């Protein structure tokens, strides 16, 4: 459903993405990982159509991004920025309902059906109790769940999440990771999410893309990432890998020199 062909991007003189080639099929849960500044966010922005590639192209459902009408594309693809914001205090429910915007005609307001979808999305994100609260009264993690609900309210086929786990406590990281899996399984949507945390990037995903210096350094099934020799080769550090709950987990700072 998604194809990236030789896509590059530069911030001024600084290259941020170098000739990325990538194909993603429908119904995959794909993690994008790599060190800070490796191009994870830029890649997601390119696919979200927030920025246009300086070379190469991105294709969605067999059509180049440039040929999609912006609103048509926005109805199919949802994007959660790394630091979602709202300049003015708004109720959580209104924030989530604004995720329906690409479906509204000019001058139309969100109707009961839109608010019902918004409530459903809040429930999915374990945030139904926040409905009447204002964004500026919430913790970072609560706000993140509200903004995720806002993305889900658009019922996108392709969901792009930039560091969705970053502001969450450990219980919600776990819950959120499961939630992404459930959304993919239940709706057949495709999710690409960026995370610099190798454990959570691989725990529930099908596939991991490893970025380094703006290039795609590796593209492998998630289970294959969690091997000491793979980590050493890709990230240049030694880590122990332990098994728990049928999954492999990385324990940094253990093994190697010791």
């Amino acid at each position, binding site marked *: 459903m998604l194809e990236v062909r030789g896509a590059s991007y530069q911030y*001024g003189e600084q290259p941020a993405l170098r000739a990325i080639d990538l194909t993603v099929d429908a119904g995959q849960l794909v993690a994008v990982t790599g060190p800070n500044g490796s191009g994870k966010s830029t890649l997601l*922005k390119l696919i*979200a*159509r*927030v920025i246009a590639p300086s070379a190469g192209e991105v294709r969605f459902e067999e059509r180049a991004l440039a040929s999609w*009408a*912006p*609103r*048509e*594309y*926005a*109805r199919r*693809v*949802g*994007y959660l*920025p790394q630091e*979602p*914001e*709202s*300049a*003015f*205090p*708004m*109720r959580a429910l*209104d924030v989530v309902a*604004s*995720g329906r*915007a*690409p479906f*509204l005609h*000019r*001058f*139309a*307001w*969100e*109707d*009961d059906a839109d608010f019902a979808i918004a409530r459903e999305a809040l429930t999915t994100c374990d945030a139904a109790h926040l409905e009447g609260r*204002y964004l500026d009264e919430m913790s970072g993690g609560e706000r993140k769940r509200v903004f995720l609900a806002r993305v889900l309210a*658009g019922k996108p086929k392709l969901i*792009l999440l930039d560091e969705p786990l970053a502001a969450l406590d450990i219980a919600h990281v776990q819950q959120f990771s499961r939630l992404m899996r459930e959304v993919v399984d239940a709706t057949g949507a495709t999710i690409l999410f960026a995370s610099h945390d190798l454990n959570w990037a691989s725990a529930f995903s099908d596939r991991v893309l490893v970025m380094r210096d703006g290039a795609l350094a590796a593209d492998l099934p998630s289970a294959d990432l969690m091997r000491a020799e793979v980590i050493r080769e890709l990230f240049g550090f030694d880590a122990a890998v332990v098994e728990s709950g049928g999954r492999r987990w990385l324990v940094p700072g253990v093994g190697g020199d010791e």
Partner: protein
Amino acid sequence: MGVETRLSRAALLLGAILLIALALGVSFGATPLSWSDILRGDETSRAILMRIRLPRVVVAALVGAALAIAGATFQTLLRNPLADPFILGVSGGAACAAALATAFGLAQRVPGIVPAVAFAGACLSTLAVFVLARRRDHTDPTRLLLSGLVLNAFFSAIILISFSLSRQSDLTAALRWMMGSLFAASWTEAVILGVLLVPAFAALVWFAGDLRMLAFGEEDARSRGVEVERVKLVGFACASIVTGAAVAVSGIIGFVGLLVPHLIRLAWRRDFRFTLPLSAIGGAILLVLADLLSRSIVANSELPIGAFTALLGVPFFISLLRRAA
């Protein structure tokens, strides 16, 4: 209750208050005006009503609406609740042009030159702020605010120099204009304001659904199908034109653009589609009342209207702020 119903009710409520404010504004003034005289067909009373009072309250309402619309739009565009036409240097540009016209003695020789150059100054300074803030293919809100601040400092310098070079007798008129006054309001001003305000307001309403999405950040808005650069251009153009028109007619009247959208957001706490039309009505109410006070507190003398927008608005603002917290 649907969202539209809420908006209509709010608009009806504010509309009713505006009608009361207009009625008060027309009824009181330097010369006592009796409604029974007018109804009996007294020529003098009719002339005062039609040629002096009515145009003045209409201009006050339009200027108030224009400043509040501009404030609401700038705040949304810059995602900054502190943004208003003054901070962006739009009013400063208008004042600077008017001060120069005074210093060169043009203000006295050419009638109508002050509003004309003020309008041009407002539009030119917006353009300058935009050009200064533009980087590659986008305009960064923080750079826009900074450019506005810097330009304001520049304009202040020119205004000070112009004033020192102006003749004493010309200064009084210039100062009155700088402090904001509706002294010269007539039907001509009302028509000019209306002609500029109505299309700009219509354009903003047309793009209100897009503009409200900008409150979530430009990248987020773009990912939701909003054509961000085009919407920003329309927003800035409209807000600058209505500011320029308001400043040209009334001089510098502060607080309306900053205060009114805040009051509306504190009272209703909804997005730009609410804030825009309600700010227009709210700004009209505030300025009609401020104008009424400015010309009726001291007999045969007009106090600066800008002082009354603040005197009226600030206590109301503080009470809403305290209740919200």
